[in-house]
């Protein structure tokens, strides 16, 4: 099973995980990213490169499925305006081996956080906005998986 969804709508984490559990592997790992509040943030606006996103995410999922013995992978990424507490990104992996499920989940979320073609703009109370700068530590972490 391979599922990649780039969407504006929220998603049902329990339902996504149930589909992975049903594959019979015995182990399902997940990571869900949620918009953090604080500093007067009222919303995060996610812009994407639609022609690229689906293909890029699909490619990295294929890479994970080649590296680890996975029965299924589900990746969801939202775009548009998201308020604090809203889910942004979900990665779920199913395997007969819990280490494979956990490591591939970490690999995929690292990639999603550093290399997926999304840009985030913060909207603050009072109307100020700011594009989020890329964090070097994310790029370093994703590169750590290359060797």
């Amino acid at each position: 099973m391979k599922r990649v969804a780039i969407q504006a709508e929220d998603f049902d984490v329990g339902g996504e995980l149930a589909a992975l559990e049903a594959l019979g592997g015995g182990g399902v790992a997940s990571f869900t990213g949620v918009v953090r509040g604080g500093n007067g943030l009222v919303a995060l606006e996610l812009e994407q490169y639609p022609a690229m996103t689906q293909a890029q995410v699909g490619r990295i999922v294929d890479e994970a499925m080649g590296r680890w013995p996975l029965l299924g992978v589900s990746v969801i990424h939202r775009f548009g305006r998201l308020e604090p507490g809203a889910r942004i990104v979900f990665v779920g992996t199913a395997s007969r081996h819990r280490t494979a499920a956990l490591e591939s989940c970490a690999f995929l979320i690292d990639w999603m956080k550093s290399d997926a073609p999304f840009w985030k703009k913060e909207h603050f109370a009072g109307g100020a906005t700011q594009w989020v700068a890329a964090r070097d530590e994310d790029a370093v972490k994703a590169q750590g998986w290359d060797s």
Partner: protein
Amino acid sequence: MAMLSIVYFAWVREAIGRDEEQVERLDPGRTVADLVAMLAARGGGYAEALGDTARLRAAVDQRFVPMDSLIGEAKEVALFPPVTGG
């Protein structure tokens, strides 16, 4: 005449004031950096957005590439800040 699409994202798009435009296809020996320099020379928002290539990233036909990559026969070049993921 063959045209090349250029697409912009995030603050690059905002500074330029548009998300897409068409230009005449360049000589196949030109790189992404050559295209960026040509656009920045227009001044205004273009110069602001594209004047410092260290702050930019690019994709050619939906693949991330280094700035010194040849554009060749590509149909679409995208210019944007480093991605910030999910």
